[in-house]
């Protein structure tokens, strides 16, 4: 019997640059225009931790523990929704 699994897509640490290029956001990343949607810090190749899409906008998260916890919680209808994002 096939069990029900939650598919979580992950990005390899050596593929981060390629990933941003494939999103067409590499220039924005290098010019510091992409911010962590939780704490507002600039996202870089080194501190990028997660991304999601909400209401069409891409939201990014840095690698701070507090930020990633808040970021993941907000995806499943938690109370404190994160708001700022990047159009793509």
């Amino acid at each position: 019997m096939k069990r029900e699994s939650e598919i979580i897509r992950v990005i390899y640490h050596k593929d981060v640059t390629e990933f941003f290029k494939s999103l067409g956001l590499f220039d924005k990343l290098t010019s510091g225009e992409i911010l962590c949607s939780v704490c507002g810090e600039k996202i870089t190749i080194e501190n990028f931790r997660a991304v999601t899409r909400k209401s069409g906008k891409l939201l990014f998260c840095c690698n701070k523990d507090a930020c990633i916890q808040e970021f993941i919680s907000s995806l499943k209808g938690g109370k404190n929704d994160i708001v700022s994002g990047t159009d793509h």
Partner: protein
Amino acid sequence: MISFLELIIELVTKYGVWGIIVSFVVIIIYLLRVILDEDKSAAWRARFYKAVYKISGKSEAEKKYIENDISSRINLARRNMPFGKEYLPKAIKVQWVEGGEGKTAQIKENELLIRLDPAESQERNIVLLANALVKQTSLVGIRYILEKPMEISIDLNLVKNLLREIGNKKILDWYLRNEYIPTIDSSYEIKEWNGKIVEIDEKGLFTRLFLVELDDYSKRVAGKTETKEMFDEIAGLVEFLYKISTKAYGQDVPLDYMTKNIKIGVILVGETSKILLTGIEPYLKAFAYKTQQQLTSIYVIQWDKEFLGTTDPKIYKQFVETTQKLDEKILEKFRVQKDFELKYTCTDASGKKRKAKISRYIPVSQ
């Protein structure tokens, strides 16, 4: 693994050719079990790719190791987390986003993509995905009602339990030091809720009762706008279970919890001597009373003194038989459906280790 090899050696040295034949059959059965169990086979794949990665340093081997190691550890651990008749959280499947020139990464609405660290930081990767899995697949349909400190406390304990079941001290320590304790220390409210949930969890009622009721609750309020009353009902359920979990010997605590959307009753078989002395009649009377209260579920929780089994096997046998009889009589006398029965171990208020059993009965409407 070592005991398995010892068994093979013993068979060969003791029985010669027959030992070799039996060992061969045992190995075939073992291999078949591993192959047929996708989590166990993932664990073996992880070991293989880890070795390949250590020797070659190749990215493909590193990715295969990370992916298989995470899946096998989390999926094997969740099998020890019963949530009523199911397991909590859902099984995980790790999928790499293929980068590269000319490829466009597609991200769906609400989909979460996580960047993982190198294989050398695998503890961090496991904690990250355990967090994501718990938050994505538990408390479904209920998160919007919960106030943040309670939601965080529930998640913290689910992740902690999942990582504890992995059985790797390094991973659990990493989580406790870097996430669990700092989060608890960050807020008085989180500390308060967490303290209560830990007590409930220690008595085995967190995943086996509280989360089961929350799951039912989410179905009852599906589509409704959140209200303060809804959160108060859930907060009240935590308080109700906390009182039961911290009940001292001989102390009376409420055993029914009735609100607009939650109506549950509990029968405690907590004093071994009482049921052995009085028999099952008082418990059946209590059950009969509860069936008249229009409850949606009735739990029978048995905590028996573990030493009974070793110091006085006769009395222990009598206790087991009496409690089995209680279950049979409940199903015979009342219009209820048995939803599940789960056996586990826990620690009582005085620190004694006890075997425990929880059964959930659902009254069938006339």
